[in-house]
């Protein structure tokens, strides 16, 4: 009796171990496929171009050349760009989180007339390519007298339907027991939002923050880098457009 049980156990153990090995193999292969292009790019950036496109590819550069990076630093006033881009990006990210979390909570949990219509209206903003709206946006900013300022970059970015949608879906997965209990305590919507949804929604908010920071940083930092200006004015909006 005990012999067959042991055998069955051993077989089950083997199956599970095989499963583990296969799973780990798949994960390793996938992460390799994902990381290799990036490793190649980094290794290329540390070499002279003339040494970079050999076949078979040399993954580890034989002589490191940080000069490429130094050249970039010398080419443009890096420090200033970083500070400006950081300021603008952080403002955008912070503003987006506040606005989206509030709106997301309302769409996820509050009942009000026109909820669905307004939500779809907001989503419709995602359905237009950026450069279609960027010109009239620029005209509006000019008319508001915000030309040439950081606000010109920050303000249009504060409304983020993507952020609202993301956080709404996230908030929808939070169980209702908590707010039911809070409501019974007499808590109003703001309390519930602040004390329940914001803390529990922290992972979603973190994701939004990372993605937002990333995309705006790429946009602002990259566009700064690629344009040269000699008058030293901070004509950001144009740089944005001409990118």
């Amino acid at each position, binding site marked *: 009796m005990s012999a067959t049980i042991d055998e069955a156990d051993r077989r089950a153990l083997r199956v599970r171990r095989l499963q583990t090995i296969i799973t780990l193999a798949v994960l390793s292969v996938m992460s390799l496929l994902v990381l290799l292009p990036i490793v190649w790019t980094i290794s290329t950036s540390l070499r*002279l*171009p*003339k*040494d*970079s*496109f*050999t*076949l078979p590819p040399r993954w580890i550069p034989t002589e490191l050349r940080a000069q490429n990076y130094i050249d970039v630093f010398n*080419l*443009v006033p890096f420090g200033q760009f970083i500070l400006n881009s950081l*300021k603008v990006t*952080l*403002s955008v990210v*912070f503003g987006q989180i*506040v606005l989206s979390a509030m709106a997301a909570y309302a769409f996820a949990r509050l009942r009000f007339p026109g909820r669905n219509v307004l939500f779809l209206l907001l989503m419709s903003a995602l359905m237009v390519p950026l*450069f279609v709206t*960027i*010109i009239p946006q*620029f*005209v509006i900013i*000019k008319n508001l007298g915000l030309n040439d*300022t*950081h*606000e010109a970059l920050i303000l249009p970015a504060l409304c983020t339907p993507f952020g609202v949608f993301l956080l709404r879906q996230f908030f929808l997965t939070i*169980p209702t*027991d*908590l707010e039911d*209990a809070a409501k019974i305590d007499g808590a109003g919507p703001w309390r519930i939002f*602040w*004390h*329940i949804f*914001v*803390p*529990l929604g922290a992972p979603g908010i973190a994701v939004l923050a990372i993605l937002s920071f990333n995309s705006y940083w790429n946009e602002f930092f990259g566009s700064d*880098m*690629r*344009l*040269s*200006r*000699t*008058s030293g*004015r901070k004509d950001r909006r*144009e740089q944005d*457009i*001409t*990118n």
Partner: protein
Amino acid sequence: MNTQDPFSKKKESSKTAISRRQFLKWTAAGTAAATLLGNKVVRATSGRQTTQTLRVVLFGAPDRAKTFEYLGKGFQAANPAINVEFLGVPGAEWDEFFSKVSTMLASGQNIDLIEVGTEGLQLFASKKFIQPLDERIQADKTFWQEYFDDVPPQLVEAMMYDGKLYNMPFLWGPAVIFYNTKLFKQAGVQPPKPDWTKDDFLAAAQAVHKLGDDIYGFGWPNRHWGGLIPWVFVQDSNILKQTQFEGGDWLWKTFYPDNKTAQGRKGGVHWPESMANDPRNIEALQFLQDLTWKEKVAPAPADFGQLANFFSNGKLAMLPAHRFMIGRLIGAGMTRDDYDVVFMPKWTTQRHQFGTSGLAITTNTKLADQAYEMVKHLTRKENMGAYVKGGVHTSPRRSVNNDPEQSKAIGPNNPTIFYDALDKFPGSAPIPAPPPNKDFTATFVKYVGLAMSNELSAKDALENMHKELSVILSKVKK
């Protein structure tokens, strides 16, 4: 502690979280408010609004910043009442540059002076976006004589439209062949003579490819300038029929009275209809197609960045380019001995295609006179020389181009070759660039691409191209 109980645990963490969050929030809000106020205050007292700003838009990359600074300083010294702003708009192609410029225009931004290339001249001139310079030049003959003496007539003609001159050539480039001297030596190929033929070219490419499976004889980009068109030209043909606009005689009489190449030129180049399906063009495209699919000496068409990389890595022996490629090769780590430049190989003729660009004054500018002063400033020999230093581009001024200082460190060994492509071959002409240039380029690149991916024969590709181009050109007024 029961982790399932959300109440107790959450309440605690949220309490501390709130205070932290609240703190952050107020700090951020405070900073934002300070910045807003700070900004406004600075603006009100800067007094910058009193000087006029001359905005010059150039096709440029960030590494031109120092050059712009240098150019700007010289101008401001002579014209202190004007604030100059150079804007270098990057782009891989001219039409990318124009797209960005038109975005700027659409948002109501002001541009006074703009670099316009062959690819956009007829479009902007026909839409009256830029203004002719005829009167100003006629009133300033003594100043300009020196310039015209230094610039070949073909370049000037390319910047004329419908009898008027719109800008003074500032940059240009013929498509000539760059070759990798090391690879040629390894393959036992003699340095090409100036009158080498298309068969010599093919033989060289084949010899190099024998060096290795991943070493190719020739690479080229499928684009408007430097793609199929150089080969069409050496077949003494063109994609569009080339004729002339009337007018402009005053220019040739005044500034090029004894110049043989200038004889017969008039008011600009005109491309009224397509001749894409000409048998000579089919032969040219077939040749390129065979290089990739039959002879296997050429890889799939790539862009200039990739070509420069492959070339400098010793994977590619030849490519078509002009002086801008030198800057890239040196930057990639090559030395002046690693490459050399030779004419396009001779087929029926050896005429070269080129593109050129210059600075045009916009029609809507309020600072036309100052813009004109800037044109005069920028076209001075020393400024044009500074602009192309380091192999950044080719200068329309013969004196700059052939100046040994420009080629001492970086080569090529025969720096006059870019000029000679015009001087020795009077038939050399600009790439065809009619007013609907974007549509022309899109159609052109599309069908060449289909031929190069072997999905269409050269004949079918050009027949289809011809049909579409005819429709596009039929919509042009005049």
